[in-house]
């Protein structure tokens, strides 16, 4: 009898062991995983290339915690794109390099009216355009999975991004006689370190995550106005907390939802604090299409509430391919 009991126990244990064998996923299938099913960092030996684009107009601002039209007659648009590559050094460690290109235009228009006599006046319209056009600040990111995800345990990952001042940091005169037209900078002139900690759990077809980030920015010397000497300028540091909830609507399309709140510290000019702190609550709805190894992501970043920050939605389109 004892023999049968021992045999039964052994068979049971063996079957449990077999049941715990991990699902086998081929490398090709891994490269086709979606934003819901892929791990937080890239698999070892995988390379992913991407193009990320951003467009927004410059029209509204949050002031006194209310969305308002910008004072005066300023109109502008920002279009930037970023070429990036990611590489999985191990199943836990990945590296990413992103090279942005920035193109913004800001227009301002006004008219001067001077009476000549009772019947005539001199009308003098003026319009100005300032433009930023060129390579921005390059980002280098390291991502590491501190805890790898299992069916019952979420993944915990840390990402550290260093931004280098590769973009033009100064306001540059365009060599005409008008001090109101000039080339605006495409970079910040600073070294910045952004640290993100992310907790993520897949419950197929859903995936949830929560992230906390802090961006530390160093002081830089730069020209912020035409015909003025260099100043010491430090952009305010940034604290950011976000949560995401993504889910599959079919095998190759996923809806993205990100809610993000950030606080921006005061800028400093020659050591003196400038302006007010800013904060922003924003929501990003988006759709991710996974066509084998090719991925299209699109979304709109919608500012909901805030103070002392821009209030215009931004349009995002991302194309990625995993090799």
């Amino acid at each position, binding site marked *: 009898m004892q023999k049968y009991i021992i045999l039964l126990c052994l068979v049971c244990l063996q079957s449990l062991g077999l049941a715990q064998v991990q699902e086998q996923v081929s490398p090709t299938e891994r490269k086709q995983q979606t934003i819901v099913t892929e791990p937080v960092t890239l698999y070892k030996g995988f390379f992913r290339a991407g193009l990320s684009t951003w467009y927004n*107009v410059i029209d509204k601002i949050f002031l006194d915690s209310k969305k308002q039209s910008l*004072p005066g007659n300023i109109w502008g648009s920002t279009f930037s794109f970023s070429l990036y590559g990611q590489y999985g050094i191990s199943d836990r460690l990945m590296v990413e390099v992103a090279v942005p290109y920035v193109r913004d235009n800001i227009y301002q228009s006004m008219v*001067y*009216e001077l*009476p000549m006599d009772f019947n005539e006046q001199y009308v003098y319209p003026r319009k100005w355009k300032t433009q930023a056009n060129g390579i921005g600040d390059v980002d280098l990111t390291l991502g590491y999975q501190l805890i790898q995800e299992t069916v019952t345990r979420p993944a915990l990952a840390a990402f550290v991004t260093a931004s280098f001042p590769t973009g033009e940091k100064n306001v540059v005169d365009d060599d005409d006689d008008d001090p109101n037209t000039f080339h605006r900078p495409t970079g910040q002139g600073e070294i910045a370190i952004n640290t993100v900690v992310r907790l993520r759990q897949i419950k197929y077809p859903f995936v949830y995550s929560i992230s906390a980030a802090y961006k530390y920015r160093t002081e830089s010397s730069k020209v912020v106005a035409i015909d003025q000497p260099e100043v010491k300028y430090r952009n305010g540091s940034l604290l950011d907390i976000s949560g995401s909830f993504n889910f599959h*609507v*079919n095998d190759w*399309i996923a809806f993205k939802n990100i809610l993000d709140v950030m606080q921006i510290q005061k800028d400093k000019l020659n050591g003196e604090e400038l302006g007010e702190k800013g904060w922003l609550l924003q929501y990003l709805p988006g759709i991710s299409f996974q066509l084998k190894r090719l991925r299209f992501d699109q979304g709109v970043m919608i500012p909901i509430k805030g103070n002392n920050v821009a209030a215009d939605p931004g*349009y995002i389109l991302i194309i990625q391919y995993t090799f």
Partner: protein
Amino acid sequence: MKVYLLSFFILCPMAVLLAQTFSGDSILANERSIDRPITLHARQLRITGGYGLSIISKRFNTEGDAIKLRDEGLSSVRHRFNLDIKYGINDFIQFNAAIAQSSNVLRAQTRYIFPNEPEPVVMQDVLTEYSGLEDLFLGVDVRAPFKTRKIDLAVTLGVNLPLASFEPKQPEHSFEFSNEGGSAMNNFTYRYYYPLGKGITVAQVGGMVKYRTSKWAFSTRVDYQHGLKDGKSFEWQHQLNFNDEFEYRQDPFTYRLPDSYSYFAEIEYQPLPWFDIFLNVSGYMSSNGWTSSLEDLKIALPEQSVTMVSPGFEIIVTPKLWLRERINFSVAGKSYEAPFGFQTSVIYNFFPF
């Protein structure tokens, strides 16, 4: 026996209802974009939520030439959210309801007026905001009961009910005197607010045609809109009093909305069962509108027209859920804005009953 009969009568309608739900779902599962009839299937409910961004940096003048608005400091953006609900009463009649909300702020060129000394310089900014709900549209489309699947024909009847606010809100002008570095300046900021209701009932009649081949579909639609009566509204006039505060009064006027035609023609190609690309040409023409002050002097509104070309695509995410996106280019027009924009719509279909 009674229990069996009762169970039979309860179970039969349930089974019929369930069967109908599945039959509806299977209709949608096998239906590509080009196959869809121009009215919904019986008991089909379609809810469409959409968002459109228009960048208005050009305008067509009365001669039809495109003027760059940013040169005149009048560029703006419009955000528009729309919700459409359609219900198939049977396979040939559908009910439509549509409402939208939009916002657009125009910030005019800043004016600096230099009067003779010693009067201070006057700086004037004008912001005009157009925002709020648009009028509710209700309509019925009736499809001809043709046997062939190649062609569909329908007539449309509808009405825009003046449920949205149409009288302008009182302006919020402000005045400030500044004296910086010895140069005195009177700063005026004028803020006007206009809602988007039309104030009168507008009737609509039109027709739709769709022709299909195995991978292509061609659709056209024309609608005519006519205001059923003249409307009354007012403009706000202002005056700065001795306390440097603005006083406002209403200046009434009557108006007639212009009669208008809207048209639409679309070519669709379905390369894959779940993916459809299309190109549509749509437009709007209006004429015969006027406004009149109390003296009964009618001033004609300029004739307006615009033609837009919109390429786009539709993805059938699931048989019930579709995603449709398009880009709008304004190619011609008269006395009308010439926006460039994007429209994204999410469409959900089901058979609730």
